[in-house]
């Protein structure tokens, strides 16, 4: 019997990743690809992560009443609405209760509404939520993780190369007219600026902070390219960088 994929890294050796937006296209792909690389605390809202979770049960179809256990490839999924005050802190608390520490924060959650500024109230109605999830939640997550896990552990943070990756967008760097991206782009621009300040203020803790700003994926930039770059940022030693990822390659801002 071949069986499902067997990952080469055991649970105890894996870095712990707190991932938001785990039910989205990128988040699900991240879970699918890196569940064997990281122990993933996968924070989702409406959509479930498209990867095995702790709630799944494994069984043999030829002996379905004898459930198997011990699935190292499952992510630990937490439902949350990061626009609600306190939810970011709660998921950090739950992730730490489950895994004991957090080495990497990937903030990929977003509420993206593209609509013209004038003509209807849709954009205005969505604006606060877009900023809350992109920017305020990023701040809340980092603050909560720093307070509960990173503060006072500078040497450990350095040794484990702890860091934050914000999933931004090239729309936060360039203006694409006529796309209805006003608020979306503004929220990503704010996230980029927050990233730079956060990198500066978390540097004394030995924690790095960077943002990845890809062009539209998976259509103009492949999903694999985005995942590769998140992984590369985690493995690097850089901080305070906004990496713009486009079809033609990448640039640093």
């Amino acid at each position, binding site marked *: *019997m*071949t*069986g*499902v994929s067997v990952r080469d890294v055991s649970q105890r050796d894996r870095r712990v990743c707190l991932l938001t937006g785990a039910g989205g*296209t990128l988040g*699900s*792909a991240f879970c699918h690809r890196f569940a064997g690389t990281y122990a993933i605390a996968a924070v989702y809202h*409406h*959509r*479930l992560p*498209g990867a*095995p*979770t702790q*709630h*799944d*049960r*494994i*069984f*043999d*179809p*030829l002996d*379905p009443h004898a459930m*198997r256990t011990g699935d190292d490839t499952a992510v630990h999924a937490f439902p949350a609405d990061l626009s609600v005050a306190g939810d970011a802190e709660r998921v950090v608390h739950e992730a730490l209760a489950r895994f004991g520490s957090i080495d990497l924060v990937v903030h990929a959650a977003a509420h993206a509404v593209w609509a013209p500024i004038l003509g209807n109230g849709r954009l205005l109605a969505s604006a606060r939520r877009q900023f809350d999830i992109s920017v305020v939640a990023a701040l809340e997550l980092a603050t909560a993780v720093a307070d509960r896990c990173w503060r006072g552990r500078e040497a450990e943070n350095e040794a484990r190369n702890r860091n934050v990756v914000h999933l931004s967008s090239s729309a936060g760097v360039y203006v694409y007219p006529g796309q209805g991206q006003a608020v979306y782009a503004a929220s990503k621009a704010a996230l980029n600026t927050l990233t730079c300040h956060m990198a500066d203020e978390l540097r004394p803790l030995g924690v790095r902070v960077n943002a990845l700003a890809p062009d539209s*994926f*998976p*259509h103009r930039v*492949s*999903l694999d390219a985005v995942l590769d770059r998140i992984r590369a940022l985690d493995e690097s030693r850089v901080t305070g960088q906004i990496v713009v990822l486009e079809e033609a390659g990448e640039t640093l801002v």
Partner: protein
Amino acid sequence: MTAQPLARSLTPEPAASLNLAHVLANRHWRWRAEPFPHVVAERVFTDEVYASFAHELRSRLEGTWPADGPGFHRNMRGYDALGMDFHPGWTGPLRFFLSRAWHDCIAEVFGVAASGHVSGGLHHHKPGSASGQIHNDLNPGWFAEYESADGIMVTRPDVCRYATGETEPPGLPVTEVVRGVAVLFYLENLSWSPGDGGTTGLYRGATDNVEVPVLEVAPRDNTLLAFECTPTSFHSFVRNRRHPRNSLIYWLHRPKADVVARWGEAAIVHWSR
């Protein structure tokens, strides 16, 4: 009119029944509770078996498979996909899905007292096919009775309309049952990648936005999605943007009385004429 049994000449041979332990590559199937209970398994069959399935589908799409019944055609109300239905005279490796062994395995996985009645076929969604409507598959199905050595009764579209039980010639003995378990098996979607669409969306309710499923099952080759058909097994095809989406659909059935006892007569979703 007195019901007459089908002529023996219409009686098909039983489907080839393979030893499942020899054809299954993955015996770690995954049971998931949300948004409704379902099973997902990847790399289901051995490479050799899967390749034979894929070859048959490819040949049928290309029109090079020896004719054993109606080929691909538009046969699904509300969908712009092409399909072809299983029938007792089906030839080729995919006849495996009509076997007693497969039927009993799926029935046992879900604890469904299945009746031996089987329907399904192949679906082909061209690139740009529209999303379907959210539905639960708790539908009735009518089967013409015929002699079957292994007790598996496959739909006979040539003599009995699955949706109504009307027969040609009229008056043939038929049985009404209800779909018990749905199985979707994805194959020949070689270039699929996230963002391509063509997924099967799972939902919490019939009025959810079809484009925003609670969970999407990717149509990766040699992957299976299965669920018991219940009043809440809401699912739909989600539009495919760039590549064709191919799948095999399989339903086993259960006695209508079981469904009525469990959920009531009103839970059965009858076909619109």
